């Protein structure tokens, strides 16, 4: 088995050739550190990302290590941050801008939707946009207004953008690396309520050591695949928990909640599969079809409001691919069609364990006709 190191949250982790125990924040920090080291054209920019290291400390230590020219504070203007990133990309750089909180992507929507998403198409491929916009996303931290929003449907609707959300430290590390290396714009939605949750992270260096299958002190090939460090693992969904009776589809912070629900359901003899969608655009339709083809029942869970949420798209894909075998219509357990409420009402808004269990129950008890 591989060695396990514990790395403090705030320090930049060493580029260790080992499996590390990291928080999501630490895993993202490590990924950025390695990306800046491997790619001289990579840049990190945004409000408070330099000296402070970001309000969530995801960029902590990076300015000191890679220089204040490559990791820099901007004035307080999101449209400026995105517009400037577009220009930097036109000049051959690979910017990784941050907007401080999801709600503050709205002031940049003009640049994201009308410019970033269209430049490749507009220029007939002559001007690609290798820009990864990091967005601390979703709720669950009792924050002020606009500090907890779910923008995935908005961005997934825009032609020319890819959208991804990691559920845990390993996914954060692997998916951020994949996103930044892509030649196209990616909206990278980090579940802020999960920043401080720890998990084991197989680094690329560890994966490159070879595998424990050869008898070495390295992760097994299954671990490497599960870590999303293979090409196949980087583009699609993943099964976070296998099960036979029903598929829960989720992403971001809702994956952990669905895993909890699956444990509770197991006590009642219901074997729930949890599918972590990861990529919200493009959506891995094959993974949905494979999972639901097997379980024949699906519930999709998201924090975003219900109407025109991504759950509708997921349900439609499942319906198209599995109509003949489905035992019940796909259920949605979502936020409500209301502005994200203040902390006191947050638990009423975010899908909780009870509401997800009710959704499962409706699907299991569904009778045709």
């Amino acid at each position, binding site marked *: 088995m591989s060695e396990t190191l514990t790395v403090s949250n705030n320090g930049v982790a060493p580029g260790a050739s080992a499996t590390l125990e990291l928080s999501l924040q630490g895993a993202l920090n490590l990924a950025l550190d390695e990306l800046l080291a491997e790619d001289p054209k990579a840049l990190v920019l945004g409000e408070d990302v330099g000296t402070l290291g970001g309000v969530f400390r995801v960029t902590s230590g990076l300015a000191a290590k890679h220089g204040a020219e490559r990791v820099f504070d901007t004035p307080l203007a999101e449209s400026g941050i995105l517009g400037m990133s577009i220009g930097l990309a036109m000049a051959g750089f690979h910017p990784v801008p941050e907007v401080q909180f999801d709600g503050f992507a709205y002031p940049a929507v003009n640049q994201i939707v009308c410019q970033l998403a269209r430049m490749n198409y507009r220029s007939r491929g002559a001007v690609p946009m290798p820009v990864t916009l990091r967005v601390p996303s979703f709720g669950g931290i009792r924050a002020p207004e606009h*500090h907890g929003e779910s923008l995935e449907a908005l961005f997934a609707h825009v032609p020319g953008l890819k959208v991804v959300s990691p559920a845990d430290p390993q996914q954060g590390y692997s998916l951020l690396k994949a996103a930044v290396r892509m030649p196209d714009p990616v909206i990278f939605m980090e579940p802020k309520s999960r920043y401080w949750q720890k998990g084991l992270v197989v680094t690329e260096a560890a994966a490159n050591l070879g595998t424990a299958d050869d008898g070495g002190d390295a992760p097994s090939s299954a671990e490497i695949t599960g870590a999303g460090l293979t090409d196949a693992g980087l583009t699609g969904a993943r099964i976070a928990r296998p099960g036979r009776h029903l598929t829960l589809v989720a992403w971001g912070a809702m994956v952990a909640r669905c895993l909890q629900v699956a444990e509770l359901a197991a006590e009642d003899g219901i074997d729930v599969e949890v599918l972590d969608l990861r990529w919200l655009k493009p959506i891995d339709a094959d993974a949905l079809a494979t999972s639901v083809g097997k379980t024949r029942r699906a519930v999709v869970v998201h924090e975003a409001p219900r109407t025109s949420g991504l759950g509708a798209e997921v349900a439609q894909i499942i319906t198209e691919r599995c109509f003949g075998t489905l035992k019940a219509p796909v259920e949605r357990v979502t936020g409500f069609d209301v502005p994200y409420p203040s902390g*006191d009402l947050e638990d009423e808004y975010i899908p909780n364990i009870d509401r997800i269990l009710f959704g499962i129950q409706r699907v299991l008890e569904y009778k045709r006709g």
Partner: protein
Amino acid sequence: MQTLGTRPTTAGRAGLAGAPREPLPELPAVEAATGAELAELYRLMTAVRQLDVAAISWQRQGILPAYAPELGQEAAQVGSALALDPARDFAFPTYRELGVARAFGVDMVEYMSTHKATWHGGLWDAAATHLAPIQAVVAGSVLHAVGWAHGQTLEARSAANGPANSAAGSADGLPVAITYLGDGASSQGDVHEAMNFAAVFKAPVVFFVQNNGWAISVPTEKQVAGGSVAARGAGYGIPAVQVDGNDAAAVLEATRRAVAHARAGHGPAIVEAMTYRRGPHATSDDPGRYRSLDEEREDAGADPIARLRERILAEGVATEAALAEADAAAAAEAEALRLGVIALGPRPGAEMFDLVFQEPTDELKRQKAAWREESEHE
């Protein structure tokens, strides 16, 4: 501004002939603050200080989940707010304007509700108090102030042309909007749009900039090109003043001049109050990562309340005993507020659904019913 090229002798709009520049209007002079006004500034500032300091400790005690202190900005906030008439003027605050809210007479429990995570915008009645709800998008409400202000101009015009049934634009001038913004906010494109619109429409609005040296971890030097937001006024043809934001009487006077200009129908004005954010950005912030305690002490300068106190005593405007009485009243107010904030319970979850629209949709009603059932609310 330098001009290049020759001015044509013919009339017209082409070339330099088409770009006449009117000299910047001067802000009117106003009377200096009276002794009674100095005492009123002190009474409000000491109340605001005590409420603010108490709120920090309530956050530490778990009464509030988070708080953004205004420590050190009492003179800027109270001084500017006292220049307004809350009965007819309208203020657009940021998340840090406890002093403005207090001076506008907003109920402090209702004000603190935003920090207690009861209701994002706060529970006070924005229409009745003339203090807009708190909104978190930096610079998000600056244009609203311009719109509200232009509305007063339109009302006044229609009153002048039609039957005299409009309150706006009476003999004592126009109602005025004041929009509060920080040095960080001044970087947002919306602020440029707001200043330009305000100047084009001659809207009666005062842009009150609290330049407190920091936008979270980013110092003004890395934020405000040219070093001054007020200096930008010249480009828009908006008269602007920079004022010592820790001198309450000076702030009151500067804001009164700006308000008088706007009220008289001459258009917008900018006041840039140079102050200092003595506390952390918010209770979750760790200023040690970007400034040292020595720097803080040095850059903060003299405490605005201590300065006012000194002046009041030197001028014999009020006695030590009177000031001590004000301090004691402030302490009592803070304790009463603590009890009020603790007693403030959560809002009923039904409000999530009921307050989205004036006319809720059937789908929202359906979601509310499902919520009641599944979350086991009666």
